[in-house]
């Protein structure tokens, strides 16, 4: 009987596959990325390396010596409290990340992780960051999402484009998104000023594009303004998905249409906006195998790092960049995804 290797599906469930099945899925995942992104495939040597990583013995695998990278994250300092239910303040959370978990950086973020919410309590949030900055050595971010969806009625000031579009009110829907961008940029830059004032190392614009191309544009414009007004505050822009949804469809930045941009195009927009780091995302398909997903991920990510002039951190969390879509992540495929992202995708961090 042909040998079968333990691996997983994109939802984390166990699957056993033969060499032939794994190699076929690697080719299919890669071909999907090539077709969608109009990018180059991985080389034969890289696909063989990917096969070796997928089938490597041992539960946890690691990178070649000297290939270690650094880590950034989103809502990191709130995860011990919010996700684990351990009641510790965020400044202590940051110290735990530094001295117990070995993190290279962490962000102080509100559990309601968006800048519209934070605007009203920005000075109080800055106080927590200031306390954390006194006691930690690693770089600290303040982080949240631009999250344009929060600016729609009834909670927000503009009409809801998701309601207007099905009603055929196209012009109104486009205008509502453009108005929301103005509000969001104002809120994000207001919060950034408070964080720059207390000495934040960096500012995280997380899950950019979550509400579509207008959301991504808001992050780019906010980044541009922050890096001009507060050059001491560095910016990381993390993407929401592998391509920007065209909820508006006509928005441009630096002459480039934002809608439909894949990571290798997104990173150029992020660079232009003045960000220091780009957090690239490739979505995990739950119905496909880990070999299919990670081949697709590495093809997209390598195309991104090939053209990037700034560091790229792959968003290697639940449901993205080859990591399965499940709450408790299995170290077997997660460590394989990390190794592949670093050694084949050539990322500068995770």
């Amino acid at each position, binding site marked *: 009987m042909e040998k079968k290797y333990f691996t997983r599906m994109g939802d984390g469930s166990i699957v056993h596959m033969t060499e032939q099945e794994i190699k076929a899925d690697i080719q299919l995942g890669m071909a999907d990325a090539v077709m969608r992104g109009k990018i180059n495939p991985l080389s034969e040597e890289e696909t063989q390396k990917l096969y070796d990583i997928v089938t490597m013995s041992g539960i946890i695998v690691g990178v070649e*010596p*000297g290939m*270690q*990278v*650094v*880590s*950034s994250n989103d809502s990191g300092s709130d995860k011990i409290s919010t996700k684990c239910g351990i009641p510790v303040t965020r400044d202590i959370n940051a110290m735990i990340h*530094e*001295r*117990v978990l*070995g993190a*290279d*950086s962490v962000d102080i973020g509100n559990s309601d992780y968006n800048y519209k919410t934070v605007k009203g309590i920005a000075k109080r949030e800055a106080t927590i960051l200031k306390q954390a*900055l*006194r*006691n*930690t*050595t*690693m*770089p*600290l971010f303040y982080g949240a999402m631009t999250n344009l969806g929060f600016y729609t009625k009834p909670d927000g000031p503009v009409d809801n484009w998701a309601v207007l579009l099905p009603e055929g009110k196209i012009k109104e829907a486009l205008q509502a998104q453009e108005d929301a961008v103005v509000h969001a940029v104002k809120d994000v830059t207001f919060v950034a000023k408070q964080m*720059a*004032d*207390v*000495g*934040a*190392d*960096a500012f995280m614009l997380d899950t950019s594009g979550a509400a579509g191309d207008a959301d991504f544009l808001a992050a780019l414009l906010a980044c541009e303004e922050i890096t001009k007004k507060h050059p*001491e*505050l*560095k910016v*990381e822009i993390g993407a929401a998905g592998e391509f920007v949804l065209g909820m508006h469809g006509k928005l441009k930045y630096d002459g480039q249409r934002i809608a439909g941009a894949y990571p290798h195009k997104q990173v150029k927009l992020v660079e232009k906006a003045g960000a*220091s*780091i780009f957090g690239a995302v490739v979505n995990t398909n739950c119905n496909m195998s880990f070999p299919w997903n990670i081949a697709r991920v590495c093809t997209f990510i390598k195309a991104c790092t090939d053209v*990037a*002039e*700034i*560091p790229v951190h792959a968003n290697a969390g639940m449901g993205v960049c080859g990591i399965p879509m499940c709450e408790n992540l299995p170290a077997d495929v997660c460590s394989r995804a990390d190794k592949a992202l670093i050694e084949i995708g050539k*990322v*500068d*961090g995770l």
Partner: protein
Amino acid sequence: MRLQLDKKMKINEAKEYVARKLNITLEELVDVVTMSELREERGIGLAHVEPNAEANMGMEAKFRIAEILDIEINSVEKFKKRAGLK
């Protein structure tokens, strides 16, 4: 990480920069034993040290990191300003 943020350096360039400033090899830079001793000697912060009372951590470590790496750290600059050191 600080070099990625401050100078937009990619990982290999950033490692080379830090290794050069610390006068160590790339192999030593990623070695926990070498770096623990070096971090203790240079007072640039440790995850764990015994006795802890003698460890440099937080702001004091960042003052030294800024000087060694020849970079400005925002929290250090704000601290100096507010403490009347600048």
